[in-house]
């Protein structure tokens, strides 16, 4: 039952195309930026820029709350109608969480895919340079060390998931307060 609602929420997320594309792109960019900041914080040479990391975390939190707010606020009538036909608050919550985590997952996949391609491209470039004798073997090895380590990537994913949960927790009171009678009122 929960899995079915989860899969339907993915369908609903994909079909609200503009919102889906806009937030997936914003999440992707923000994830890339946050990963970079984590990388700098954990493995950077000089002093890590903590402020940038904090700004990226706060931005993620704000964006997650905004997304949850948009999903709930712009679909009041739909949520109220679902309540009229017997959906419980927990069912609605499953649908909303499913939608938000799906966007996070897709954005993460795009970001990971992009990083893999950048790394592969850089490796190829420096390999060619090394074969042509333009750079030394030591430089080649240094340059082709993965651009990003795995931990900053995982830390970013964890941070995004936590902020999604926070967004839902904050917005859940809106779902609880929304009475099914709204389904009759909104359009009149």
């Amino acid at each position, binding site marked *: 039952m929960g899995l*079915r609602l989860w899969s339907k929420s993915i369908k*609903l997320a994909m079909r609200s195309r503009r919102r889906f594309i806009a937030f997936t792109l914003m999440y992707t960019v923000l994830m890339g930026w946050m990963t970079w900041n984590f990388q700098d914080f954990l493995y950077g040479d000089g002093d890590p820029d903590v402020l940038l990391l904090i700004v990226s975390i706060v931005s993620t939190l704000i964006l997650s709350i905004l997304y949850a707010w948009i999903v709930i606020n712009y679909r009041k009538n739909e949520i109220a109608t*679902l309540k009229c*036909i017997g959906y*419980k608050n927990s069912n609605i919550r499953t649908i909303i969480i499913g939608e938000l985590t799906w966007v996070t997952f897709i954005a993460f996949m795009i970001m990971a895919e992009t990083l893999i391609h950048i790394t592969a491209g850089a490796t190829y470039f420096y390999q060619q340079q090394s074969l042509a004798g333009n750079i030394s073997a030591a430089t080649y090895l240094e340059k082709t060390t993965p651009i990003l380590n795995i931990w900053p990537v995982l830390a970013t994913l964890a941070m995004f998931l936590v902020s999604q949960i926070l967004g839902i927790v904050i917005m859940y009171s809106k779902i609880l307060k929304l009475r*099914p009678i709204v389904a*009759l009122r909104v359009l009149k």
Partner: protein
Amino acid sequence: MPEVMIKLENVQKEFRLRGNIIRALVDINLKINAGEFVVLMGPTGCGKTTLLNVMSGLDLPDDGTVILDGDRIDRASEERLSDIRRRKIGFVFQDFNLVENLTALENVEAVLWPGPLRTKEINNRAMSALAKVDAHERMNNHPKELSGGEKQRVAIARAIIHKPRIIFADEPTGNLHHAAATQVMELLKSLNKEMGTTTIIVTHDKNLVKYGTRLVEMEHGRIIKS
């Protein structure tokens, strides 16, 4: 003795509007038997939609008792009301209230998604409900691709998929032209006969009275004829 589907005793409901108290329902006493097709009529603002909301558990009365198919719902929790709505009630709205991002078939299926039935069974039931209202040919269309009459037929299929004991319809023909309105009313009437589902329709259209087995008239929050 006929089975009582809905029983209201001394039901009161007030609203506050800009400092004024509006008595939407005043001492309502009403019994509706199983299988009846009730047309609830009255002028705008007489309290008929409020009465429908109270009878269906969408709104709670300030005072009085509401019993729906043996369940007292006037003080029930939202979780309990959700459960009752899922098992016993079907709704048909004036504005259809279909989910725009779902197809006609999915809109009908959506009622059963949170339940224990297998997906295939849900799909079969939804197709059968759509066939019953003659909307099966449009099952893969989204609401925006349907006419008003088609949307309302899909909404009716959604209201009957879980075989409810009672259907509440709030101005079901309010947004339809005459031909589509007639079709929708004929459909509700035939479903009432065929399935024995108690049907309660709120309307201000006197032309719909002929479809009912019983007329309940309201004025100023009171029942003046039942």
